[in-house]
């Protein structure tokens, strides 16, 4: 009985895994097909004439893929680094310093986490219009330089660092910023890892915000550029799939290298 239950478990999980992986295999298969093989019936998993490299070359020829990729790196990279820096700075301030109004300000920030971004995006759009920042990198990046969630997570973590460490550093004559830089930051590594991965993932895949702010092609991020490509060349499925493949391979590689942090990050950030 117990034996069958185990086999049943493996079968359920295994079938599920096929279901999870099949779309990716189909993606790889289509991305490797020359145009005349996309519409063969019955579909072949491995094309007669593997033309993945040709398709990739074609993608670079048809859309400024490199530019989109670079824009995504700039957007997600800046937002992530800044969120880590400003978030930990504020988290340190909120957890280890006493000043009038501290708790009220913190509760305000906490409360703002409950509000979905769809509520704030319309006024922020107006603000950017007034600043003349629509369709610019700064318009894309500056509103996301830090998140309420980032401040909250860092504050919760830094609170667990014993005050004695800070007192000892202060006795040694370290300045406040130096304490933050050489003591708090290294000790906050687990929280910084989790927050970094979470922020990078969310920004890299963000679609709605770039869609609203960016209109010129040279500033489009990868998701935006791909969406545009879909409408433009809707039936060239081999090229579309090759573009998708190019876009997700770096993500998959980063995920496989840092998968422990990803999974830890999700559980840490999920529990908020």
């Amino acid at each position, binding site marked *: 009985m117990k034996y069958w239950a185990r086999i049943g478990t493996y079968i359920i*999980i295994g079938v599920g895994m096929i279901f999870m992986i099949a779309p990716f295999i189909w993606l790889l298969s289509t991305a490797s097909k020359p145009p005349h093989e996309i519409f063969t019936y019955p579909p072949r998993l491995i094309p007669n004439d593997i033309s993945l490299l040709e398709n990739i070359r074609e993608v670079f020829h048809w859309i400024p893929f490199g530019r989109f990729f670079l824009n995504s790196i700039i957007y997600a990279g800046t937002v992530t680094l800044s969120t880590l820096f400003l978030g930990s700075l504020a988290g340190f301030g909120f957890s280890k310093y006493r000043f009038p109004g501290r708790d009220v300000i913190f509760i305000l920030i906490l409360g703002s986490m409950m509000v979905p971004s769809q509520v704030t995006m319309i*006024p922020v759009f107006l603000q950017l219009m007034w600043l003349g920042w629509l369709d610019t990198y700064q318009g894309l990046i500056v509103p996301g330089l830090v998140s309420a969630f980032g401040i909250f997570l860092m504050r919760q973590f830094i609170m667990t660092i014993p005050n004695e460490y800070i007192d000892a550093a202060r006795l040694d004559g370290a300045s406040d910023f130096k304490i933050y830089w050489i003591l708090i930051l290294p000790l906050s590594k687990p929280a910084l890892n989790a927050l970094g991965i979470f922020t990078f993932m969310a920004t890299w895949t963000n679609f709605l915000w770039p869609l609203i702010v960016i209109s010129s092609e040279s500033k489009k991020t990868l998701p935006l550029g791909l969406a545009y490509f879909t409408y433009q060349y809707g039936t060239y499925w081999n090229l579309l799939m090759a573009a998708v493949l190019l876009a997700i391979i770096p993500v998959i590689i980063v995920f496989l290298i840092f998968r422990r942090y990803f999974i830890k990050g999700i559980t840490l950030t999920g529990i908020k």
Partner: protein
Amino acid sequence: MKYIPFINTIKIRENFTQYIRSFSYREAITGYAFIAPAGVIIIFFVIIPIIFSFGMSFYKWELIKGVKIFIGLGNYARLLKDQIFRRALFNTFYFVVGSVPLSVIPGLILAFLVDQKWFKGKSMVEVIYFLPVVIGWVEIAMVWRWLFNPNYGLFNYILSIIGLPGQHWLGNPQLAMPSIIMVHAWKMLGYNMILFLAGLRNIPELYYEAAEIDGASRWSIFRYITLPLLKNATFLVLVLNVIYSFQVFPQSFIMTQGGPYYATYVVVYNIYNTAFQFYKLGYAASMAVVLFGIILFFTILQKRFFGEVVEY
């Protein structure tokens, strides 16, 4: 004679002065300096916009016509009669009701199965199921649009092998929403599994050992130990999923563009079109406020439903 409440203003002032004096001047300045950069960003791009958004929802505010008139609850009155918004609201509820159970329940079952002590290959299972989570919606939606292709897609091919007729998955108004729900469940399954796994790991081994000694079956262990102790984790997973599902947008934007015949037109799509295609900002703000209200309501409702925290 009127009763005049006695307020000792001197005492209050003294207390306040004492409160202020209890802070070290230097410490307070440093504290403010640390929170200032983040604080400015949050105030300018989060707090002010939140207030602004509520305010805007009372205005007829149209960028193209250059109109900005206070109309009180006019936008909300209009929302009640707006057929398209009602359709979008209905579709969003349809999406939430379909997608949340479909990704949470299998996520729970998977987590329970994988968490068994004898189970081998845990990390591989985690990686495979988590893969769709790390990939963006645009890429996922593009791949599934191809899978759903009525003439050459993999789905209809598989159906034809079993001898079933092919479907216009995304082109049929009846099937479009279920198809999008299916994709959503597929993507979110791994995310929920990971969250449940974290919850399961918080349950002390002791309970399972005791149950095993008592000779409890696997089902009764799941039903009477795992489930009750997983109440907090379940609450968390549900809230996260409901909030996330209410914000559905890129799925329908890429796969169906809201169609066919508004079958997958959702609230965020409606907000996006109203604000950024027709530039009716005030009207769009009122929709966003309604969306916020609904999300808040469900968060509180679930908190009520799950009641007090289970201690162990």
